[in-house]
């Protein structure tokens, strides 16, 4: 039976969100995670989208961050400039949920280019608000599937800054959720494997990581999805098998 990796990732990320927090989300997995959290354990989670939407209660998976459904169910929609300058920059966003093409051990994210910037192998979409969110959300949670290409020793381009060398800055990456496990960040700002899904070993993760991975001494197991979490996942259009 194949694992529902997307569903597991969304549920694992959802658990990192606390009730009442303001969460800046994108479409896809981040949106799924935030909405699972809102339905399961964080009914007062405030969903914010970089399109300016504040406190949306989407009735369907949004197809873009400016989806009319987000607007129609929102508390308010503010100009993008206000969202970034008056809400994100001063620290009123608790969590940013971010994806990316690559991540490194400092939590730096690449969503700009594979290969060189001037002669790219694959030109990606670029920052959007990601660099701003990674800089100024109180903490960020990164979601991406795990592979050697996505966890290289050196990413091709730093779009969104992680922790500087040797130093964990006050805001910045706090967790990375992949289809193999969940990472946190050490006091010196380096990524560390904190837990794996059932049946996944630290070695399985190391094989898909381009640097020598730090592993928590008390490496945990990501608890299996609860029925409530699976219900929420299903109702949100995720696959959600047990």
């Amino acid at each position, binding site marked *: 039976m194949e694992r529902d990796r997307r569903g597991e990732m969304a549920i694992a990320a959802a658990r990192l969100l606390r009730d009442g927090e303001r969460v800046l989300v994108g479409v896809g997995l981040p949106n799924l995670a935030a909405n699972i959290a809102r339905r399961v354990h964080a009914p007062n989670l405030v969903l914010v989208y970089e399109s300016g939407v504040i406190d949306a209660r989407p009735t369907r998976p949004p197809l873009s961050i400016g989806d009319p459904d987000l607007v129609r169910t929102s508390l308010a929609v503010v100009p993008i*400039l206000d969202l970034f300058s008056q809400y994100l*920059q001063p620290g009123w966003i608790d969590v940013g949920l971010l994806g990316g093409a690559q991540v490194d051990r400092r939590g730096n994210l690449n969503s700009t280019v594979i290969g060189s910037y001037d002669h790219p192998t*694959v*030109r990606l*979409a*670029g920052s959007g608000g*990601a660099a701003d969110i990674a800089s100024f959300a109180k903490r960020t949670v990164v979601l991406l599937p795990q592979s050697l290409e996505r966890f290289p020793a050196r990413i091709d381009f730093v779009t969104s800054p992680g922790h500087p060398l040797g130093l964990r800055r006050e805001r910045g990456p706090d967790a990375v959720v992949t289809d193999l496990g969940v990472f946190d960040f050490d006091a010196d700002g380096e990524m560390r494997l904190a837990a794996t899904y059932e049946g996944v070993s630290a070695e399985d993760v190391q094989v898909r990581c381009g640097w020598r991975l730090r592993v928590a001494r008390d490496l945990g197991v990501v608890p299996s999805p609860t029925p409530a979490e699976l219900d929420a996942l299903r109702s949100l259009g995720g696959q959600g098998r047990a």
Partner: protein
Amino acid sequence: MTAFLTVQEAVSRYVGDGDAIYLAGFTHLIPFAFGHEIIRQRRRHLTLCRATPDLVYDQMIAAGVADTLVFSYAGNPGVGLLQAFRRAVEHGELALEEYTHFELVARLAAGAADLPFWPLRSLDSDLSARRPRPRVKSPFGPEEVAVVPALRPDVTLVHAHCADEMGNIYAWGLLGEVREAALAARRVLVSVEEVRPGDGLRAERDHLLLPAFRVESVSVAPWGAHPSYVHGVYDRDTAAYTEWDRISRDAGATSEWLDAFVHGVPDRAGYLSLLQPERLRALKEAAEHGA
């Protein structure tokens, strides 16, 4: 006085080769009618500015109107990447001025306020390594902040719900960076779903997007934002965004699409005549039910 012109007349009169233009609208109210007309009139060497290039710039880039792209997120929202943009960049055919969303809208804010720069906080990244965000020291303390330069498009093109007969422009729903992009421009051209006669719109003062004295011309263009949306009028044509992903992966198919849907029709009415009436009806119904 604001002029009432056709989309063709407005583009012909006010958009010149080599201009820096901004097609405003963040997922919502994207002025596709203007974008297609610029392709149709075969403008060249444009600097296209837009936070989210979206399909409209992917089509314009494919049509060869652009030398430079000023942007912050070149994705196909909800679908993936912009394929014509990718091809142009991967083949080195398009110069890029790349920012974050915050930086790009801050550049517009500076333009709108007639200031040379706008201050914001910014951490180092490979974006700033390639194009430094200079720091300015605060005269009031030890702090430094970054600044980005004003962006002042020659022309900003806007699509909105409606105008009155004076040229005052009204819009509802998500406005994104539309107002700043318009106020930053030397000239603002607007297309609207309809012009409403009389003074009735004055009661909608909380939805005034732009006063007539900031608007060069108004053009009536129903469905002027399709496949983007007009809040409460018609919904986003998500299928069109997915179809474009398929079409645009192939340069030949892209050219054929442009020939059929842009060059092959004289105007927006011609474009609409190529779409199934049921498709448009469904988008209208979705917007009305949702609203």
